[in-house]
């Protein structure tokens, strides 16, 4: 049981570790430094296109999406890290622009409730405190 919990926590951190295909990035936007481009893709995947329905700026051909993609790459080249870039964008556009909801008190239920329900259910159903009757 504890092992299972540990594995869950571990898996929380391995969601993204590879180079994402982008379906809207233009050739002239792509940075020559591969590491920087990967970081740009990673951040862009998390930034919502404000004028589209539920797309990231990496997948949208809207002009604002392109502006933001270029802005992010400029900031990466200036040496800013992802936290600073996210702060820059949320200062102007609010938390709405993040596709991954930030961890704040108001989003605690969103992030922890499913996990909590899972643990409670498993413990309730499988904890050997009832009559142990092998049918």
């Amino acid at each position, binding site marked *: 049981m504890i092992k*299972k919990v540990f*594995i*869950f926590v571990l*898996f*929380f951190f*391995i*969601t*993204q*570790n*590879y180079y*994402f*295909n*982008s*379906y809207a*990035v*233009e*050739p*002239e936007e*792509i940075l020559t430094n591969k590491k920087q481009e990967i970081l740009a893709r990673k951040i862009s*995947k*998390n930034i*919502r296109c404000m004028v589209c*329905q*539920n*797309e*990231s700026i990496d*997948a949208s051909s809207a002009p604002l999406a392109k502006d933001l993609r270029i802005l992010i790459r400029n900031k990466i080249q200036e040496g800013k890290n992802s936290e600073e870039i996210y702060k820059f964008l949320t200062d102007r556009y*609010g*938390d*709405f*622009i*993040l*596709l*991954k*909801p*930030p961890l704040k008190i*108001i*989003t605690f*239920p*969103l*992030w922890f*409730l*499913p*996990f909590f*329900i*899972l643990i409670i*259910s*498993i413990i309730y*159903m*499988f904890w*050997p*405190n*009832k*009559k*142990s*009757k*092998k*049918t």
Partner: protein
Amino acid sequence: MINIIGNFSLWLALCFSAFQFLNSLKKNNNSLIYLNKIAVNGLLICTLISFFSLMYGHIVSDFSLTNVFQNSHTTKPLLYKISGVWGNHEGSMLLWILILNIFNYFIFKLYNGKNLRFVSKILETQALIIFGFILFTAITSNPFELMQELNENGLGFNPILQDPALAIHPPLLYVGYVGFSAAFSISLAALTLEDNSIPWHTYMKPFVLAAWTFLTIGITFGSIWAYYELGWGGWWFWDPVENASFMPWLLGTALIHSLITVERKGILQSWVLLLSILAFLLSVIGTFLVRSGILTSVHTFALDPSRGIYILIFTAILASYSLFLFGLKLKKNPTNNYLSFFSKEGSILFNNILMVTVCFSVFLGTIYPLLIEAFTNNKISVGEPYFNATVVPIIIPAIIVMGVGPILSWGGVNKSKLFKKVFPAILSTLIMTFLTFMFYQSYSFVGLIGISLAFWIISNNIIMWFKKKEKLSIGMIISHLGVGFLILGITGSSVWQQEKIIKMKLKNEVKIKNYNIVFKEIDEIKGSNYLALRGNFYVYNEKRKLITILQPENRYYPITNNFTTEAAIDTNLIRDLYIVIGNGNINEGWTVRLYHNPLVMWIWFGAIVIFIGGIISTNNNLTKMKSLRK
């Protein structure tokens, strides 16, 4: 003329549904079946007439009907004129109603000498549901409204929706949703049952299986369309409408498994009754989210808050009625024993808990922005990163258990014997995973997890197949195999995708993976209702042999003033080669995007195999149900 026939039959159907409801309430047995026969047949005939009247209007391009004017055009090919009937809100409601009444007819056929009250109760609840949907359609979304003035032609139809996969996608999904309505009604009938000899689960299982099976293939065609048509390379976006179809599917998966424990061991009965209620309620809430205008999504139909209020009230009535009944009528089940984790019932329960948790995550993620908006001044987004982070970690243990669950015995297993049984599968998994990594020469942790899970399932099920134990259901083995293939495809295409985005002039060449692609020419072509710029890309392998010619297009539809890009895709079992042509001109060249997506075919192949397994199981359970007549 056609609108009078269509509208009249719709309102007449409403009367028949009220008649069925009132009739089924009666305790008097004498004419119950006969009167319900009139109601059920009347409903079916009326809705058939209504539906086909609308279809007739679309086929002959009768633009006096608002629905035809807004959604059709004379230049649309016939297939899409037909599918255009359900490609809009009003027409799709009519399709939903038709399928509801077809299922209603099948429920009526369940009457045998012994189950009068039971089936009547099912028909009573169904009548209530049918009444609600017809009333909604007739009043707020009537497809037979007339135009004030007659136009020569219609407003055309969105060109990206003119696709065969998309044409078939709604009818398949609706069979799924409606099937869950039948399970809902059976659940309520079971709750009010006085006669304990009626095996309500034997009646419920084929409906749940059919619903789940068609929901699976419906969702699959939606994804196939998105991948091949939209040019975004993706097939699942965690869009609210997609989530609305995924949630009932998850609960349906839980249901088809826990129904087995009800059948064989009589346990988890109240759980199954609750699940079947929730599955349908989620379908209706999904309908609400999509058609009320409360949120925006790529899929939403016309936005209209008044429709939303109606559906909300309808949902509230259904939910309070069913959940209240559930709380009230639930009988205390004597078996509340400890379940061992290492037993068949334990693994099924584990699966159920995980499916319900994932469903809860998806539900929470979908409505959370609305909750935040209602209670604070802020707005947040809950997008793909959230769903990937919460759903994927939970699916993984579910898949692990799924590999070994079918061979666990009821009541518990000997752990060392189990290990011996499972050892060949473990070995096979390790070998196949190793070979795959050698082939792709790309090492990633996520890829490792995905591939080993896929081969874990595939190995276990192939071994089960060859051992040919009669006890194991063939439908189950096939469906589980399908899941293995599906995971293989999902992992391969997510983890090992490659891209090349460059500007290409004519005669330029580019290399991706071990393919050489030459941009040979560009031409202008004319389609039935569009003009297009088409690129011709010659694809060569390492030995300079021509494999295929890919022709992506940029299309312009003059009627709707729409631009779309048509991706050109070469598919085989190993990989997809995907080319999209963007903007540009002869001097500077064009933006060309090339993608190499491995194992994509396995996603669709796996899903179709799941579907086939589902059909087989549905058929087997239908036979079981029919044998109740004797």
